[in-house]
Structures are given as C-alpha cells and as structure tokens.
C-alpha cells in the first residue's frame, strides 16, 4: 500500500491546519478522548439547538490522522441531528474497520463521501484508533457529557 493513500493531501491539509480548533464558551456537551497507546488527546465540544448540532469544535494534540479526522468531523456534523451523526459514525466506523457498511440515508451520502480520504487507515490496523478517536469522544459527549467525560480507545 502506498503511503499516499494514507496521507492524502486533504488529510495533510486538515492535519496541519485543523478547522474548528477552538473551545467555545458555553458548550452543551463535551468529552475527552484519550488514546493511551500514543498519548493522543482530544476534547470535543458540542452545542445543540432545537434538536440539531448548532456547533461542534475540538482541541487537542495528536498525529495527522487524528487531527484531520477530528477536523473533518466538525465540518460534517454541523447542522445534523444527533441521529444523523450517529448514523454517520456507524458508517464511518464500518468503513475504516473494513466491515460491511450499514445502509445510509441518501441525504448523508455526500458527507460520507467527504470521509473517504480517511479510509486509508484500513490497511494500518494500529492507526484505526487515531481516525476514530474524535468520533468516540463526540458520541460520549452526547451520551453523558453534560459534565464532561473521558473515553479511552484501549
């Protein structure tokens, strides 16, 4: 497998210049993600309004894959309902772990397409957790993160 398949330009761009890299003043939910294997840490902030994700942002440090994945996630999830976000995570998780992808609402197809560059990690089992760290943190934030919570990938 060529390294270019893993480190596509869009990954390098988002990895080095992550979008929505900030801490909002009053997020509805937040959660910390930690990968003990490599020390990567990410905090995801979510604000809900009228049942939709009004704002999602993150802060943290980590490898290009984890930073790019967090960055792309924040761009995609803005304006989605929590149910749509969960469906996207489910589909993305299936993509990067190489299992059969669940059916996805046609309206979300474009968003899933945008996550395609991250699927190169499939060939690097040790790196799958890097790509899913921010998503796990996002999921944990919505589930029980009003007071903040920590998920570990191990």
């Amino acid at each position, binding site marked *: 497998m*060529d*390294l*270019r398949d*893993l*480190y596509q330009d869009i990954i*390098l761009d988002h990895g*080095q210049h992550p979008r929505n890299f900030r801490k909002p003043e009053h997020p509805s939910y937040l959660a910390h993600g930690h990968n003990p*294997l*490599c*020390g*990567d840490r990410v905090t995801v902030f979510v604000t809900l309004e009228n049942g939709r994700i009004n704002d999602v942002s993150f802060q943290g*440090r*980590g*490898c*290009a*894959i984890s930073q790019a994945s967090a960055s792309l996630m924040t761009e995609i999830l803005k304006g989605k309902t929590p149910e749509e976000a969960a469906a996207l995570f489910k589909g993305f998780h299936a993509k990067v772990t190489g299992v059969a992808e669940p059916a996805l609402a046609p309206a979300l197809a474009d968003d899933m397409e945008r996550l395609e560059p991250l699927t190169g990690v499939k060939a*690097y089992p*040790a*790196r799958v957790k*890097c790509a899913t760290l921010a998503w796990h943190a996002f999921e944990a934030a919505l589930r029980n993160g009003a007071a903040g919570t920590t998920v570990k990938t191990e």
Partner: protein
Amino acid sequence: MTLVTPLRPNGRLDPRAICRDFPVFARNPGLVFLDSGASAQKPAVVIDGVAEYYRSDYANVHRGVYRLSARSTELYEEAREKVRRFLNAADAREIVFVRNATEGINLVANSWGNTFLKAGDEILVTVMEHHANIVPWQLLRDRVGIKLVVAPIDATGGLDMAAFTALITPRTKLVAVTHVANVTGAVVPVESIVRMAHAAGAKVLIDGSQAAPRLPVDVQAIGADFYVFTGHKAYGPTGIGVLHGKKVILDAMPPWQGGGDMILDVTFEKTIFQEPPHRFEAGTPDISGAIGLGIAIDYLEGLGRDAILEHEEALTGYGVDRLSRLPGVHLVGAGQRRLAILSFTIDGIHPHDVATLLDGHKVAVRAGHHCAQPFLEALGVGATTRASLGVYNDESDIDALASAIQGAQKMFKVTK
C-alpha cells in the same frame, strides 16, 4: 550448537554476516530493523535450539526419575550456569528464572519489600525509569507505606548526579535504577551509585534490560544487590527473564508465589520451602525459554561481548552524527554517554506519523511514550520516535533511517 560468526579481519563485528544468522532478514527482504530496544530478533540457533529441545530432550524438570527428565533438568540448570557466566555472578544459586525483567522487579518488591520495608522507608528511583521500575514500587507503597523518591535528569538528559546524591538519606532503603535508559540510551554510572547507596546502608536494584545485551555486565564488579534483565531483548525467547540477587539476601527472602517445585516438604500443617533459587520458581518453569536464553548467551559470547559493545558504540556515534545533521530533527539528549538508542522528534510531524511513514520505507522503529511516561514529561515531549540498535545493524541502516526521515519531511512538506 553455538554458531560463531567470523569477525572482520580488524576484530570488529560483521553485521552483514550476522544478518544471515537471523532468518527474519531473509524472510523480510529490505527490512531495516531498528527496534531491538523493544525486542531483539532471534538467531536461527535459538529458534532451532528450542525446537530441538522439544524434539529430543523434553520432559518436566526436577521431578522425574527417568532419564529424559534428568536430561531436561540438566539442560535447564546448564542454562542457569550460562546466565551466571553471562553476568559473572559468584554462584548459580543467585540466578532466579522469571518471566521477564518486570516479574523480577515485582518479585523483589513483593518478597524483599514486603518483608524488610516499613512505613516511612524510602525507595529512590530516577525519572528515567521504565514503568516496570516504577509501578511495582507504587504498589509496594500502597501496601506498606514506603515513600517513592524520584531523582531528576540534568539539562543534557543525563542523571543529575548532584541531585541524586542529595536524595540518598538514612531513610533510603533501596535505590532502583536503570543501567541504560530505554528512551534515550543514557548509560547510568551504576558502580558509583552502588557505592553511594551502600555507604548509606541502602540496597540497590538495577534494571539491566537494555544493558545486558550490549554491555559486558559484571554483577560482582557492579556490586548491586539485585540485577534484572529480560531474555527477549537479549536475542532469546519471550517469556524468560532473570533476577540476579546476592545469595545472602535471597536466602533471607520468603517465597512470593507458592506451588510445586519451590517446596521441600508439604503437609497441611506446614510447608518447608526450598533454598533459592528454586524457592522463587513456583510451578513448572519456562524450561525451553531458559534453554533458548542459554543458547542466545552462547551466541552473544561467540560474537564477543567487547566486540558487541564496540560495534554498538561506534554505530551509536554514527547515528548521533547523522541525525543531528538533519534539519528539523531533534535528538533527545542522553547526557555523558549514550548507547544504542536514538530518540528524536521531527518538527511538524507527530511521532506516530513518523513511525508509519518510516514503515513505508521498511524502517521499523518505535513511536510513543516507550512505557516511560514520566520521563517523556520530564524531557518536555509527549512522545518520541525511537530507533534502537542490535548486533545486525550497520551504517546502511542508519543511512536508510536518515533518508526515510527526509522522505517523511518531504511528504509532510516540512522540509527546511
């Protein structure tokens, strides 16, 4: 069984020839293996020797009266004698077989620590320690209330000897230090540490996991009370390690695990325990692992311990020189003397990405905190990439590493 690879005419190791002793290189053409600090590859003599033992000589040890069992016992105890020679210990009864260095340290913490230490006693470690030389003492602290004291490093990355000296007090009962730091390759002056500790009435445990495969270790000259190392970093099998303890100290220590093989007489009222080392080897041991380690020791002695040290020191120097001339690459300091380990960071590329990018060039290195999180914190880095050397490495491996680093910088567009 011993296979002696010819040295070059100048008496130096010939890594190209040595590579042919290690089947992994023929099976993985182009592999640049720079992760011996995590675990070394195995020479064919070890792999085949273990298989041969299972084919020809296998039976349980210390039990059977039949010839095969006697033969197996003989081979197991022969391996203990080889380890004694390898460490220049005074007596083979000072050699306890354990699973790995970690278990050796846990044995000391549980048996010696539980028995002889009490609340308020201090154990002095350094900030450079592997988690294996931190966590067992923390567990002991929680059991008996000892205090764990940590000696810092100086600005060059070596042990701060002035601070270390000041931290040895009448309360210090044990000094537990690494011989060669696994993150930086810093060689710790263990002889002077032992002198200082003993003068203060403290015992000393040395973690020789990185040192034993590289330095001609002489436990009598070093004088430490305990010395541990693991077999798999010394070109032996996984699952076998060694605790060396001075006989007079081991004699006074109670068992830490009970079972078969460690007893003289058992009734439901009372059990009489074996003498060391068997007192500390409960249950059927890793017989083939010990035998494999013995063969690895024969192999290393065939190469020559001095020749190995000279080779790895020269290659370390070459690596330091090569990496420090790469723009954007920062070697983590190792103080006065460094051996076989090169930890570094690269501007703009996370160590995890570095390791994946280097793997793309078939260069195998370790990335992360190297089981030494407090050390990484003291160094002011969250993670590093680590290249570590073995007897099969030569300058071309360092050159491959350097060019793979440049390739990574180019791909990440962080070239200066």
